[in-house]
């Protein structure tokens, strides 16, 4: 496969309410950080791909608000209406098609400006689902409970995910929630959507992330440690909840298989040094282990108990703290990509996994992993 590199990354601190920033200011913060960090101007950027969501921003054509901030004058800027990981791969395709040499990918999201329940309820069709009042949380409860009933996962096992990720977030200066929790904190937090308790669910955050992609020939002009795309897969499960496979993330599973094939990976837990998965809720990370082939079906609970996914384990998962620590919904997938890129560049500071050469990131669209995008990256030592 032709190569496409990530050469630079910028993130904002994720927090509950960036009330004094408009979307334009929020995006300009990361774009400026990115450009200053790389020593480039907007003329060095061939094209821009952004990711945002109209319902979330309260604005149709949500990318119209950030044209000034991404330097679109006279330039091609296009927008994926969905999770940032999908914007990443579209940006990468723009380079692999040999049309552009450099592409900036930006994703922004503010959960503070709208009513997330209503925004998520609008994902459901107006004929059979919306009037029931469904939203992301009730669907998550349904999925978690069906997973538990099929495989006998315990709430302690799920709580271990929260423990791990919230502890990891202490090493991540960008993370929203910067406080460790105990098992008791999780188990005794209020029940929201059985069996999900408050701490099994993520916060709501504001933030933005940007990165620069370049073609192979010029990558080393920008950085000594470019991060290369090795594999990609994308897959969508059914839409109506009654048609979904609720006990296993089959969309994620198929997407991962495609990505592994492209990257030449046969044994994920041996060949992947670090993973940033989209942990929408605690049990979801366990389901992701299984779907990604880190462990067998129904073994997610045992797998976290084995310590393999801790910072000190063989396949650390979510050293950044994951979505359970920072949740600017539309930007989550691109943040996963950014965090893996930082790991592979050796720039992850306190959350660095030593000698990380190959990493996995995944993004999600729709309700509870209906749409999935799995990306495998490698640094010079990993490809």
């Amino acid at each position: 496969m032709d190569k496409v590199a990530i050469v630079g990354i910028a993130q904002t601190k994720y927090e509950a309410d960036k009330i004094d920033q408009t979307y334009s200011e929020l995006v300009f913060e990361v774009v400026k950080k990115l450009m200053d960090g790389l020593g480039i101007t907007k003329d060095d950027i061939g094209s821009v791909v952004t990711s945002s969501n109209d319902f979330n921003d309260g604005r149709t054509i949500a990318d119209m608000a950030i044209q000034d901030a991404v330097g679109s004058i006279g330039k091609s800027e296009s927008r994926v209406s969905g999770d940032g990981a999908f914007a990443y791969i579209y940006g990468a395709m723009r380079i692999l098609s040999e049309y552009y040499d450099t592409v900036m990918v930006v994703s922004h999201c503010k959960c503070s400006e709208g009513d997330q329940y209503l925004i998520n309820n609008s994902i459901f069709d107006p004929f059979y689902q919306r009037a029931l009042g469904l939203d992301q949380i009730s669907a998550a409860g349904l999925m978690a409970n069906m997973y538990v009933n099929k495989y006998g996962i315990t709430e302690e096992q799920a709580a271990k995910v929260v423990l791990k990720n919230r502890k990891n977030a202490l090493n991540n200066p960008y993370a929203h929630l910067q406080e460790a929790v105990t098992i008791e904190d999780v188990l005794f937090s209020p029940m929201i959507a059985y069996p999900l308790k408050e701490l099994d669910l993520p916060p709501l955050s504001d933030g933005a992330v940007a990165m620069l992609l370049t073609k192979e020939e010029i990558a080393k002009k920008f950085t000594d440690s470019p991060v290369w795309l090795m594999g990609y897969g994308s897959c969508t499960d059914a839409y109506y909840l009654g048609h979904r496979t609720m006990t296993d993330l089959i969309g994620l599973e198929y997407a991962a298989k495609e990505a592994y094939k492209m990257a030449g990976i046969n044994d994920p837990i041996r060949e992947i040094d670090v993973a940033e998965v989209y942990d929408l809720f605690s049990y979801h990370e366990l389901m992701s282990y299984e779907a990604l082939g880190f462990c067998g079906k129904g073994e997610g609970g045992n797998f976290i108990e084995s310590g393999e996914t801790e910072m000190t384990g063989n396949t650390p998962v979510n050293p950044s703290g994951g979505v359970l620590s920072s949740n600017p919904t539309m930007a989550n997938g691109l943040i996963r990509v950014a965090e893996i890129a930082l790991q592979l560049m050796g720039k992850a500071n306190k959350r660095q996994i030593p000698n990380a050469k190959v990493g996995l990131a995944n993004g999600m669209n729709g309700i509870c992993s209906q749409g999935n995008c799995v990306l495998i990256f490698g640094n010079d030592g990993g490809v």
Partner: protein
Amino acid sequence: MAKHDVAIVGIGQTKHRSKRRDVNIPEMIYEAVKMALDDVQLAPADIDAVIIGNMDHFEGINFSEMWCGIDAAPGYLKPVVKVATGGTTGSSLAICGYHNVASGMYNKVLIVGWEKLQEGGATTGIITAFDPVWERPSLAGALGPLALMASMYQHKYGITAEQAARVTVKNRRNAANNPFAHLKMPDLTVEDVMKSQTISHPLRLHDCCPQSEGACAVIYANEEETKNITDNPAWIQAVETAHYYTFGTDDAMYNLPTATMASKKAYKKVGITDPVKDLDVAEIYEPTSWSELAWTEALGFCKFGEGGKLLDEGITQMSGELPVNPSGGVLSTNPIGATALIRVAEAAIQVMGRGDKRQIPDVEKSLAMGFGGSLWTEILILGKEPLR
């Protein structure tokens, strides 16, 4: 994977109408998708990825691609992605599809643009595209700013309302040859247009595009797959986009600078020096009759201020040197999420020679234009051969 050539091999459209009372959203989209698949005799399983888009707040459905990509398109267990950029949605979808195939990631991709405008209302939806603090309180949808643009254009160059009316007459008469067009008016006269009610001075009712409901589906394939599918594809030679400031009024844009920027890039890539000579047909995005006059200038078909003259000399008529909008254009059919994709589909139909009564003879190269947002432009150039 090196760069691949990308061809449009199959096309499907619904018969666009003001309100489809007989089908709901996925059922309507399915019509176009099925037509495209049948067009090239591909099975749903043959499609590698689905790229589908509309404007969310028009129908009030968030992540609409998660619903329609599964229930109206063969997206189950496949990649489904939405690209949505307002009026340019259709062309952005077309361009996204191009990169999906040209990059080598996918071999056969289905692109779908759709809109069911009457379920929410286009003007209301368009207002939500603008800044809530500064623009929404006074904004009257797209027609308000388009009327202002027409007003400035008229003032600057002395274009008359009759010249603008002649655009509508041309396009809606052209539409009578297009079985999919919404407003077919083979007997429309300049007088009819001039007598119609003034909606927003100087725009009369018949100077404005309709609100339509419909879908358009296009299938792309790379050079290897195309050999197995059809011997009559339309090859995508250039895809260019130009954007501008956040506020649509930061520049007085009656002459659409982004159209000049994007078309210049596209012409350079393909080696076009004189668009009227080098292009055989153009499907441009004219939301009002005045816009077509202004944008033929911006696209370099004539000098600034001479759009009216270009039309009056017959150059953009069906029989002229560079026919513009043989399909009837946006003035005849406007399901917003699909409109720019219909321009691409119609430009492809011309290259393929499948235009029947609206076919322009001997088309080698065609141009498709998308317009929308804070006055952005996207240009695609299609041809009988891939660009080498």
